[in-house]
């Protein structure tokens, strides 16, 4: 799902922020936590924007 979101949120600018905003708006905290954990251990599977989006969420 994270990958799907990343592919479907377009634009060059502020893409990571937009992805982060989507995850914050629609996912439960638990879903986000599980995703953070998964992405941490499987970084190579994901785009840089998605990894950046997770970082943005973690710092909020």
């Amino acid at each position, binding site marked *: *799902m994270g990958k*799907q*979101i990343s*592919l*479907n949120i*377009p*634009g060059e600018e502020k893409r990571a922020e937009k992805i982060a905003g*989507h995850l*914050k*708006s*629609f*996912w*439960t*905290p*638990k*879903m986000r936590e599980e995703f953070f954990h998964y992405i941490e251990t499987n970084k190579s599977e994901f785009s840089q924007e998605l990894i950046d989006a997770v970082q943005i969420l973690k710092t909020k």
Partner: protein
Amino acid sequence: MTILKEPDYGTPAVSNDQSVKVKIDGIDVEVPAGTSVMRAAAEAGIQVPKLCAKDSLNAFGSCRMCLVEIDGKKGTPASCTTPCEQGMVVKTQTPKVERLRRGVMELYISDHPLDCLTCPANGDCELQDMAGVVGLRDVRYGFEGSNHLNEETDSSNPYFSYDSSKCIVCNRCVRACDEIQGTLALTIQGRGFNSRVSAGGTDFMSSECVSCGACVQACPTATLQEKNVIDLGMPTRTVLTTCAYCGVGCSFKAELRGDELIRMVPYKDGGANEGHSCVKGRFAWGYATHPDRKTKPMIRQKISDPWQEVSWEEAISFAATGLKNVQQKYGKQAIGGITSSRCTNEEVFVVQKMIRTAFGNNNVDTCARVCHSPTGYGLKQTFGTSAGTQDFKSVAKADVIMVIGANPFAAHPVFASRMKKRLRQGAQLIVLDPRETETVKNPHVEAKHHLQLLPGTNVAVINALAHVIVTEKLVDEEFVKERCDIEAFEAWKEFIALPENSPEVVETISGVNAQEIRNAARLYASANNSAIYYGLGVTEHSQGSTMVMGMANLAMATGNIGRDGVGVNPLRGQNNVQGSCDMGSFPHEYSGYRHVGDDSVKELFESMWNAPMQTEPGLRIPNMLDAAIAGEFKGIYIQGEDIAQSDPNVKHVKEALASMEMVIVQDLFINETAQFAHVFLPGTSFLEKDGTFTNAERRINRVRPVMASKTGKSEWEATCDLAKAMGYEMDYENAAQIMDEIAKLTPTFAGVSFKLLDEVGSVQWPCNEKAPLGTPIMHVDQFVRGKGNFVETPYVPTEEKTNRKFPLLLTTGRILSQYNVGAQTRRTANVAWYPEDVLEIHEADAHARGIKDDSWVHLQSRVGETVLRAKISDRVPAGVVYTTFHYPVSGANVITTEFSDWATNCPEYKVTAVECRPSLRGPESLLVNSDALVGK
């Protein structure tokens, strides 16, 4: 209320800025130019006798009852076909016209059975009335001559009969079928004295008749008569209410005799339907009193135990204890609920309130999750609000109608009739659909462009249409500059002009001829008014939300927003999809689509509800099911939905339900989901409800109780009882009080009350201080969000791929006579039209597999298998198969997968890779074994 008879002005109203003054029987009348003398007379309070005229039909001038005399004019013209002229002086009652009318009436009666006292239309027969009005006292010709009195009655239709012996050949039924319904199934066969109404030379059931009832309603005698009226007698009182089938939301007069519902008659002043109906709304309401209906609360400790009928108090206490125990064991987030689009706004509102207060979390979702959730997301991102832009009436001003992923002829028939009328007037039709549906081509309507795309390629095609508009400079620059966010537009323009979005590239992806895409785009962009109407063929994809934004981009780029005849309009599947979304049923939003993380909104709800609100989104339906299987979600309240039949990958749904410790189902019937329930709370049918539904055009309509609740409670009362048993005080005296609370908490509903609705009939939200009588068309001067927002919509292919094992693509939908999971329509005579789900398959695919028409076919996807009967059809292209999900026995959603829309999790019902082969046995042999799951 006694029986409600709406006034009939004889001919349709005329819209004209110019008016003319006439004098009729000494009364001065001013009417729009072009108005008939008959209508002008009616507006002056003078009823000219008539038989073939009706104000829902164009004037015909055949019955010769409405003859009048006009000063300075020769003869006795028919008032229905004579337009008023300035200064005209008309006399409707003169010895001459009275004599002529009596003479004509004598001829009618000489060939009409004189059985008024035993006739089912006695008291509701215009011929009888007119015979009295013209003062007919005897028939000089006798009754022995040639006549039609011994003609046979056609009783083939389950709901009405055609008794030719009573027919006066007024043509009203034929014209109603032509002009109102647009099916043209009826005609007058024979000439002169032998002229008779005919359903195309066959009986009604074998004909093209779609059983909408327009002919029955138009008939002035008992020729076309509801069988219920024949069997039970004429109704004596009326309750105005709203249909509970599709999202058109037709207004009906429920006509009763005592407490027995005799018939449903579409209401002429109904804003959505203006007097028209379809086979479901008009006739298929018998499920409300079907013997399968459960009206007593029931409980059981385990789902393998038999049900035990108990009192409401015991059932509520059992349910509350179960939910509290779950929360104690697994945490506050371990329970949630699902609201229903079949229930009223008020019923839905209290369920989401109960979840946010008594349950203490935001784990509320609604069945719109699996249908139109992408509409909410996509239109909010682009326009600023989660709803369609127009009223239904607007289609009458459209010059080009683009229907995308919808088949209104089958699923929204009353809207389709409006659309067909406009198409017959010359509007052009573009359809995007993998199938050649009735909307694409039928004997009377044919799309100018049918973009027959492969399932799953919507976004590629909408981008190609936009590409043509941008690269051929068809953009409405002035509109975009004035109304839209220019920065977003420029970014979108650059994206859409990329070669990857060109029709030539998209042809290789979608299978749609590039030139056809170019021509369709030019047609859409160049018309004065182009309107988009869409359905679940847009939303139920992995890119459903992207496609909604793609359509919004297209409308903004061409300036087709903010006036009559244009817009982007979702055709909602169920009666209250719009309302259930409006009422705060999503886990991230309160009523009025305000995010749970918004502090000011949170404070408003906390102060009003006197309970702490959570600021994080809750679980969506698929999240709830996944969490259940993971052992983290253990209790659910399901209001009027059958997720074990309607949701994708049914096996997964059933496993999730079976793993829960407290499942509460509120429904009319023991449906598939209730097989997994511990508590069954009997629900009320729409005939028992008091509240409101909001249709696809944002129209809030009253639903009034036609009969007393068969369960002893309103559904909202049961919800309040459960909330109280959970520890949260929730009390209302009536449904009107709930609406008052909705209005206080929801800016777009601020002006709505039952009192207002009772006064004005219906309103379309926003209804507030700025728009006290509602808003038929949105985004008129500016978008709700301010500037329209163009969003880039890259095409991302679905992960559901065909391969050697599953080489065909299955797409699903519904048909005219059945509805959703069929719980209602399967319990009516509508089964006569569609007794089982079938698999439409192209001849080439069938031949390659040795599949014969009407034989059993085994259908398999990577998640499940079923058996259906094959229907070889050229409506589907080779490589695509199609079925419906109306019958649990064939269980189409056993096949569909858990792939879903990236933004909203709306399931991708429309794209499933499958294979099929001949089967010797029917579907019973492969039913998902619920018994094993429930431990029986």
